[in-house]
């Protein structure tokens, strides 16, 4: 055991370079900065959405009602002077404004005659159509159109039938939303369930993806650089059990990858909190009992299963990367050698995000389940849907794949193939 820790410590010292520490610190800093600035812009954008410039060319009681209604629902209304819309849009006076509405002359008269007046809604961009402000302009325009429509339809209803309740006529039902998951039903809006499910699973696949890529690169680098420097030949001629060399390298890489992914998660969390704040968690609290009833809250046992699935996912990636590192000609060839692993990772990470695995064609389903990483990526959703048996089978399969690749790695290490076999883009060659 003592020799394992000696080897483990050496591996950690070799892997934790100054460059690695600097790049992680830089990553955390960048996440922090991007999160802060994006958050600030998001807030500015949110504040700006309540501002609207209205050109009232109708100057009727109805246009006054529309403006009052907008102000009542939180809009900061600026009344533009008479003129045409284009003049107001490009006037320096309204340079910072991005939402404009024109209430045309004769609007009330048209409605009184049962005709549809034509109102103009303008979204103004400065130069480029990008950033948070730009992405918010479509929902902002849609919202103000609905708001103005509300005011005008209230007026039209009241005009036709003064005793009628416009709110009742427009929405005569009370909608109660239910969601059924598995065998349970709960009264909760669908949108809230979706938001909760996303908030629970949003970070997870990204973190798993990064931890797997980082640890795989590390173990490949560790093996390939030992080969290149011939330090491996010295270790192979030592009395140490060669399986211990394999285990110590895998353990050290997994350990550092776990630390790095923790750092990554911290950075990502600060980045996301900058953008979204704590909206997701507040939603979760308000509907907690419904989520509990639906079995969507992950229990400690559920977290244990997810943890095990992730652990075996990392171990599978490490054992595969170890073999690729053994076959790599030198450190430079690692970028090419990692390609098969990256392809499997991308497939298992991205496809389940866009397709429903249950409805996927059999061939595709088989391919995805054959990749051991898929089971870890889908573990949270599977646990939330109550299908723990599937997660367990996934873990058993991952353990089998891990054992298979470790035994191959062990065989490579105990024989001379480690020194004689080199693989470059699928081409085998023996060397002296």
């Amino acid at each position, binding site marked *: 055991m003592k*020799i394992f820790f*000696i*080897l483990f410590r*050496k591996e950690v*010292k*070799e892997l*934790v*370079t100054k460059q690695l520490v600097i790049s992680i610190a830089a990553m955390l800093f960048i996440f922090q900065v991007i999160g802060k600035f994006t958050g600030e812009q998001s807030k500015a954008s949110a504040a700006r959405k309540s501002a609207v410039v209205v050109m009232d060319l109708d100057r009727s009681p109805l246009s006054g009602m529309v403006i009052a209604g907008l102000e009542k629902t939180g809009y900061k209304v600026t009344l533009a002077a008479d003129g045409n819309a284009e003049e107001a849009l490009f006037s320096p006076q309204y340079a910072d404004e991005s939402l404009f509405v024109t209430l045309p002359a004769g609007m009330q008269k048209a409605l009184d005659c049962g005709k549809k007046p034509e109102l103009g809604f303008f979204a103004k961009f400065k130069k480029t159509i990008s950033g948070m402000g730009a992405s918010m302009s479509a929902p902002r325009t849609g919202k103000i159109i609905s708001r103005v429509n509300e005011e005008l339809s209230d007026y039209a209803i009241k005009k036709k039938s003064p005793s009628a309740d416009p709110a009742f006529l427009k929405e005569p039902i009370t909608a109660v939303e239910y969601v059924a998951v598995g065998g349970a039903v709960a009264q909760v809006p669908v949108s809230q369930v979706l938001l909760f499910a996303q908030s629970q699973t949003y970070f997870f696949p990204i973190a798993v993806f990064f931890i797997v890529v980082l640890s795989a690169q590390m173990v490949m680098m560790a093996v390939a650089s030992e080969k*290149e*420097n*011939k*330090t491996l*030949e*010295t*270790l*192979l*001629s*030592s*009395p*140490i059990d060669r399986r211990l060399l394999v285990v110590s390298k895998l353990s050290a890489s997994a350990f550092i990858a776990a630390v790095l992914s923790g750092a990554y998660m911290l950075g990502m969390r600060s980045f996301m909190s900058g953008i979204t704040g704590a909206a997701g968690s507040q939603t979760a609290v308000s509907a907690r009992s419904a989520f509990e009833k639906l079995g969507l809250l992950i229990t400690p046992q559920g977290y244990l299963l997810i943890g095990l699935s992730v652990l075996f996912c990392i171990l599978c990636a490490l054992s595969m990367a170890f073999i690729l590192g053994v076959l790599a000609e030198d450190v430079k060839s690692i970028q090419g050698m990692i390609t098969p692993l990256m392809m499997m990772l991308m497939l298992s990470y991205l496809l389940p995000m866009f397709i429903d695995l249950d409805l996927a064609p059999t061939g595709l389903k088989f391919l995805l389940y054959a990749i051991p990483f898929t089971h870890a990526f889908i573990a949270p959703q599977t646990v939330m849907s109550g299908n723990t048996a599937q997660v367990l089978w996934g873990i058993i399969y991952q353990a089998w794949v891990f054992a298979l690749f470790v035994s191959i790695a062990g065989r490579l290490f105990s*024989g*001379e193939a480690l*020194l*004689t076999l080199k693989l470059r883009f699928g081409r085998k060659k*023996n*060397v*002296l």
Partner: protein
Amino acid sequence: MTAVNVSGLVKRYKKIEAVRGVTFSVTEGEIFALVGPNGVGKSTILKMLATILVPTAGSAEVFGLDTVADAAKVREIISYLPEEAGAYKNLTGHEYLDFMASVFLRDGEKAAAAVRYGAELCGLKDRLKDKIQTYSKGMTRKLLLSRAVMIKPRLAILDEPTSGMDIINGYEIRRTIKQLAAQGMTFIISSHNMLEIEFLSDRIGMINRGELLACDTPAALKERFATGNLEEVFVKLAESGA
């Protein structure tokens, strides 16, 4: 006592035969050198003796232990220094010696004594506290050679021990090898530097294209081919194909 006994050793890589039926033996405390140009199979023979390559045919024994059947036991009594080997660049010189002593010696006290001896042998003094990535090629080689002999193996296998070293460092290493051999350590070294070999070794095995052409003391070889230096001996052997 016979330290190494190599008999009909063959190593084949698919169609290439790197070593062709090599036979020689080395006695305890002897410095035996394999000489010949680059790529003739010297390193392959040393790797087979160091148990990291398996012979295709023939056998190699180290102090009576077969390098294939008793590989684990052989590893307990040998030390191997590969040609142009590097060290762990993120470790300091002292950490490297400490790590290697722990790997080769299970006994903590023996390991500590080996580190002290290795530190003394390499002569790097305060530079042992610095990371290996700051060392020159010569300093690294001295550290590696000290690592190879500090554990006092019964057989030290050194592949081109002085390659890339300047005159003074090379001289110091040759002197150290001679001193250790006088104390009973057996050495098998490889080199293509005939002058170094003539100074250092008790006996020489001349190799070309995987075959052992001749095996004797430097003086005997020179006398047999009536020449004053080993380079001419090698050229004559290579030309005659003897």
